[in-house]
């Protein structure tokens, strides 16, 4: 069930979608910028958090700079009736940040996707081997990153300025 955004909610989302001010009073500054009371800003954010539209407010870190230089997307070919069990086992690894089921097709048989992180390429490979052993699946592919082409926060409200 999707709840439509109010006019103030849209203004707030447009203002903070790419990040909040790095000031000592970020919410106050955002409120001032969009012309509402700080309590309105806090109330909206709390309501988003409560209904799940927002997971949290927090720092987004560059994982390269906190010691996790290596990462890989690994795609797994899992039998249909084991997807849920395998997905949950994958999710239990602290080195795994993302685990999803996605559709497979004739030319792409993989249906479980994981992002694995570690200090170095070897750590990541070790983790992947451990995951493979734990779930008992050998049909997988590590899609190594050659280059990051783009990484920007989502734009939910188009505001004209980029």
């Amino acid at each position, binding site marked *: 069930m999707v709840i439509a955004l109010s006019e103030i909610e849209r203004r707030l989302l447009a203002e903070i979608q790419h990040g909040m001010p790095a000031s000592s009073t970020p919410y106050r500054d955002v409120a001032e910028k969009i012309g509402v009371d700080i309590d309105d800003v806090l109330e909206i954010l709390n309501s988003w958090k409560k209904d799940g539209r927002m997971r949290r407010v*927090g*720092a987004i870190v560059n994982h390269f700079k906190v010691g996790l230089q290596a990462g890989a997307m690994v795609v797994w070919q899992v039998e249909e009736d084991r997807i849920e069990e395998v997905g949950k086992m994958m999710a239990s690894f602290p080195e795994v940040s993302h685990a999803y089921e996605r559709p497979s097709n004739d030319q792409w048989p993989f249906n479980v996707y994981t992002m694995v992180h570690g200090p170095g390429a070897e750590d990541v490979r070790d983790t992947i081997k451990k995951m493979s052993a734990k779930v008992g699946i050998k049909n997988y592919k590590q899609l190594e990153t050659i280059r990051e082409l783009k990484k920007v926060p989502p*734009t939910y409200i188009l505001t004209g300025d980029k």
Partner: protein
Amino acid sequence: MDKLDRQIITELQMDFPISPDPYGIIADRLGIDTDILLDRVQALIGSGTIRRIGISVDSRKMGYSSTLAAVRVAPDSVESACEIIETYPEITHSYLRADEFNIWFTVIAISQQRVHEVLEELRVKLNIELSDVLDLPVKQLFKLDARFKPTK
């Protein structure tokens, strides 16, 4: 980066208080002065260790549609693909990967129709076949937690 920086990074990723004085609350939790915390945070943002303080949105619940997609393009088309991808605000992350499907990207848009439009426009601009595009929307979420514990 010292121990305090690592503590700050961990704390700021967990739950940034929704309060008039978020840094005062975090400083109390860490048992340090607010001014020291603010200086450290500014430095961590300045060095790019913290990309930003922001909101983590559940795009589906917020009313948006998304997918992970991959395209198979010839090596000499990678640069032009990059330029095309750059023009779409709906495409948020993109990676060149070592696979026959070599360009991977995420699309977040106001509707499923718009997601499909973006994929179709890209396909036409790249002059590739339908079979050169993988559209892989989430069927089931097992984990999404991109909060990282600093290790050094």
